[in-house]
Each structure stands twice: as C-alpha cells, then as structure tokens.
C-alpha cells in the first residue's frame, strides 16, 4: 500500500508532540512516555500520579474527536496487516517496552531531547528492529 509523502504535516504534528513533551516537563516535571502512562495506570500506587496519567490518556483519546470537529473527518488509519499480526505484534511490543523502559515517545522524543545515552541506544535499537521485521514480513515471508 503506497502512502503519500507528507513532510509538512508530519513535521507540524511532530512539533506539537515536542511541545506537549516540553509542557509536561515544565508543568508536571514528567517524561511523556506512552509506555509509562499505561504501565502506571495498571499499577495503582499514588492516587495523584494515577489521576495525572488518566487525564493524559483521556486527552490523547479525545484527539480524534477534536480533529473530527475541526476538519469534519476522522484521522486516516489504514491497517495493512492481518488480525493475528496485530495481536502478536502488540503482545511483543508490550513485552519489549517493559524491559526496554520506554518506547517511541519516552525514549525516542523525551530521552533523546535530553541526550540520554540509554535513550539514544534504545532508539537506534528499536528502529533497527522495526526495519528488520518489516523487511522479513514484507520481502521474505511476503505477508
């Protein structure tokens, strides 16, 4: 499936993500990591922490509705893989980010933005992993 090259909207969206990460640190002193938010919600500890994560998640989940109101359409989500691929891939992602201590947002944006060596290592490693598995899935297995 061919997708359109969108440098401007992608850069604009990225800048909004970078701004959100900066604001979360400036106001709440936290790293913006999707993994940390979900993992924290699954492990109720401090009530204020839990509510903060729930509010972040609620804001994220509200985003498609905001776009629907502003643009009149839902954001485009095209899924070119099978249901088993989503389920198996999703489980592998959850398993990996737990031990890796973060994902594209926590390591890829927040960690790299403060030049953490751990995050730079993690980012290079998970990017390499994704290149490898896409190559295997699409060009060797042909799924």
């Amino acid at each position, binding site marked *: 499936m061919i997708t359109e090259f969108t440098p401007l909207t992608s*850069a604009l969206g990225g800048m909004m993500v970078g701004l959100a990460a900066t604001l979360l640190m400036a106001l709440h002193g936290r790293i913006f990591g999707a993994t940390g938010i979900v993992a924290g919600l699954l492990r109720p500890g401090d009530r204020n922490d839990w509510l903060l994560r729930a509010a972040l998640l609620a*804001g994220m989940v509200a985003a498609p509705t905001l776009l629907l109101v502003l643009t009149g359409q839902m954001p485009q989500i095209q899924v*070119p893989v099978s249901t088993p691929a989503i389920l198996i891939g999703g489980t592998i992602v*959850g398993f990996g980010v737990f031990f890796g201590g973060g994902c594209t947002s926590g390591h890829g944006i927040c960690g790299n933005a403060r030049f953490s060596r751990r995050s730079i290592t993690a980012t290079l490693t998970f990017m390499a992993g994704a290149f490898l598995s896409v190559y295997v899935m699409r060009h060797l297995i042909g799924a």
Partner: protein
Amino acid sequence: MRLLTAFLIGLLFGTGILIAGMANPAKVLNFFDIAGTWDPSLAFVMGGALLVAVPGYRLVLGRPGPLFEQGFQLPDTRRIDRPLVLGSLTFGLGWGVAGFCPGGALPALGTGRGEVVMFVAAFIAGLLLARLTRTLMQTRLRAT
C-alpha cells in the same frame, strides 16, 4: 487545574500524533520499507518533535523545578544494560509486525476502530506478561 492541564497536554500530544501520521500503520510501516513502498515522512515527525523538545527541555530543565510539583522526575539509571537493548530490539520487531507503537495507538483509540482496540489489548497483555516474567526471574534468583 493540575488534571485539566494534563488533559490538554494529552490532547495536544494526541492531535500531533494523528496529524503527523504516527497513528496510521500503513504510513509507519512504509517508513521502514526502504526496499519497497518507502515513505520517509516519519523522519520529519521525530525531527519536528526534537526541534521543539531539545531547546524546550534545555530551557525547562534549567529552571529550579516544574510549576505544579516539587521537582523533575527524571530516570536515574545511566547503564546501558541487557534489558534495555534486548527489550528495545523486541519492541522494534513487534512494531514492524503490527505497525502501531504505544504512542500512536493510544490517540487512535479515540476513533473506536477495532484494530486499535485489539492492539492496545495485546499491548497490555504483553506488559503484564513481562511483569510476570520479571517477578518469576527475581523469585528464581532469590531461591538460588
């Protein structure tokens, strides 16, 4: 107030992710498919994010603390260890299979699409499985 700003920050993040195309598996997978239908857009997402977050973090972390909390909560580990590398490699492999990453899937949940719900459910199952694995490994270490 604290919860309202968190909600708005989540909304800004989610809207950015959706506009950027990070919640669209077809686009994400094409970024990694250099040998096929390559779409380099995702490099612009990370570039744009870092363009703002690098100076933003520098400015913010130079201040005595955040507005609503006592101090900044930053990870104190610096070691590049086996869990970091193997876990990240595993994450990357799974990302290439499913096409969603956690930060892309959470905002996409709001579309109510079945594929996104399935991914997030599987993601949570993977997190819990990993937690169980670590607990078992630690118990075994203590036993020996």
